[in-house]
């Protein structure tokens, strides 16, 4: 009895000691020092002219360029997604001619540099001085000078949409391929037809796998709009260049543009995170953690590694 009483009924479980990571700390200190030095040289460098940067950050011409950048990105991404779905649907078509057309489209627009495409669309008038639309054999037709139609802006919309559309087509195709074939059979078994299966069953499920690459693609597109500056598209970089070509404050104005691109990217990444969470709504709660628990898991995984 006395012996039993002396033994503690419940033993305290031994806690696990935290693992020490001296190498990690060393790396962190070295990196922090390097960043601090770089930051200091940038901040204190008189050539950066931070005052000028601050002055132009909210300059109306810059803000107008920013607006055009956003507008171009959104419009072109919308067109690209429409093109992407159409072309991906054609790729699945039973008609070999339609399949061929879509394959050539994707090949052509992915194979040629975007810059070349943009300059080409801008100079379309050299190839076709007039755009004529008419009904064949009726003599009814209308003609416009190409130069009036293709401004820097329309060339930008054309070039960016068609180029991005080719990439989006591949993303949509990949997303559709990831939907299990049983889904199509289930839809067929309740009497659905091709278009309905696409819009009601496969495409909604493909969206989930399409979001990360589409986010990437959109981020690329936003930055690609800066290429439009070579044809005077009036977006952020064009306007920044216009300003520095007059006052020669090249570096500060490039900084202003870079700052706005960084801000746009931060907003887009956050938006993408919430979008991914929203489409995961049919998953059990454990599969769609909040931003905080996801960060915590990431840190823990890094520690374990």
């Amino acid at each position, binding site marked *: 009895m006395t012996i039993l009483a002396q033994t503690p009924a419940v033993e305290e479980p031994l806690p696990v000691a935290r693992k020490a990571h001296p190498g990690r700390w060393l790396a962190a200190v070295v990196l922090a020092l390097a960043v601090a030095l770089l930051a200091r040289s940038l901040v204190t460098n008189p050539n950066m002219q931070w005052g000028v940067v601050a002055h132009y950050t909210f300059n109306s011409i810059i803000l107008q360029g920013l607006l055009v950048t956003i507008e171009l990105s959104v419009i072109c991404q919308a067109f690209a997604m429409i093109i992407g779905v159409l072309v991906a649907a054609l790729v699945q078509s039973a008609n070999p001619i339609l399949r061929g057309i879509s394959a050539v489209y994707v090949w052509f627009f992915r194979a040629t540099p975007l810059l070349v495409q943009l300059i080409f669309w801008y100079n379309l008038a050299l190839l076709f001085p007039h755009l004529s639309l008419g009904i064949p054999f009726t003599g009814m037709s209308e003609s416009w000078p190409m130069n009036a139609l293709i401004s820097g802006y329309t060339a930008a919309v054309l070039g960016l949409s068609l180029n991005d559309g080719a990439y989006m087509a591949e993303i949509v195709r990949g997303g559709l391929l990831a939907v299990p074939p049983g889904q199509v059979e289930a839809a*067929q078994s*309740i*009497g659905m*037809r091709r278009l309905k299966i696409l819009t*009601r069953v496969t495409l909604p499920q493909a969206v989930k796998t399409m979001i990360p690459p589409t986010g990437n693609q959109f981020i690329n597109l936003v930055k690609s709009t800066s290429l439009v500056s070579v044809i005077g598209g009036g977006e952020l970089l064009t306007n920044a260049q216009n300003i520095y070509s007059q006052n020669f404050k090249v570096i500060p104005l490039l900084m202003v543009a870079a700052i706005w691109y960084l801000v746009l990217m931060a907003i887009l990444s956050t938006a993408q995170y919430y979008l991914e969470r929203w489409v995961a709504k049919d998953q059990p709660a454990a599969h769609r953690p909040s931003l905080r628990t996801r960060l915590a898991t990431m840190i823990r995984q890094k520690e374990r590694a």
Partner: protein
Amino acid sequence: MNTAEHPAASAQTAQTPAPPDRLEPMVRIRGVHKRFDKVEVLRGVDLDVQPNTTTCLLGPSGSGKTTLLRCINHLERVDAGQIFVDGHQVGYTARGGKLHEQSDKEIAAARRRTGMVFQQFNLFPHRTALENVMEGPVRVLRQDKHEARTRATQLLEQVGLGERMHHYPTNLSGGQQQRVGIARALAMDPKVLLFDEPTSALDPELVGEVLDVIRCLDGRTMIIVTHEIGFARECADTIVFMDGGSVLEQGSPQDVLNNPKSPRTENFLRRVL
């Protein structure tokens, strides 16, 4: 409540016995051949399924049971032969001594006469149980949304899932998912229900709940591919034994299961019983 719409009521009227010899078969299969590349999987299948009867399709693995079932709603093309459901030919139209595949529209219409329950359930993962059941009636049959919802709710209650209507498939057990699958097929009011091993993807303890639901559908025309011999003995009006791509024998459960004529049937039954 409108009794004509009630599933139990329609099942009862369907049960009214009629002399089987005077009925046109609900499913008529004539000389169906099907090959995958070089392998002939169906070698001239003939089969009649009478209305309001349960037919269980038995046979060893690879004998072509799934393929035959999938031909009945044209999920699989045939190479020769004809299949009729409720008098309408499925998938093809005979013209000039040849079979010509029907248009997307005609095929879809033919598929509406059959309901299919899949081995892997194949529920739409992005829709709740209720939405899965409503999808066909609303999007294909263009029924009024409220009516479809009422009917889908009744069907889900009938299969014992009244409580879980708003769950997504990932939040349902296999047995529950399969019962939603059955409700989804029933919602289209098909002439024939096709089941491809509806319980073989389930944990053993969930098999019973799905078989119970299928039992309650007695009185409809059903073709069930199954390895559950006990269930077949109890529920089937006709047992069809397939081997090597053709129907080897068919008859009542007593005939086929107790006194098989073919040694191959006997062999198969000895292995599975």
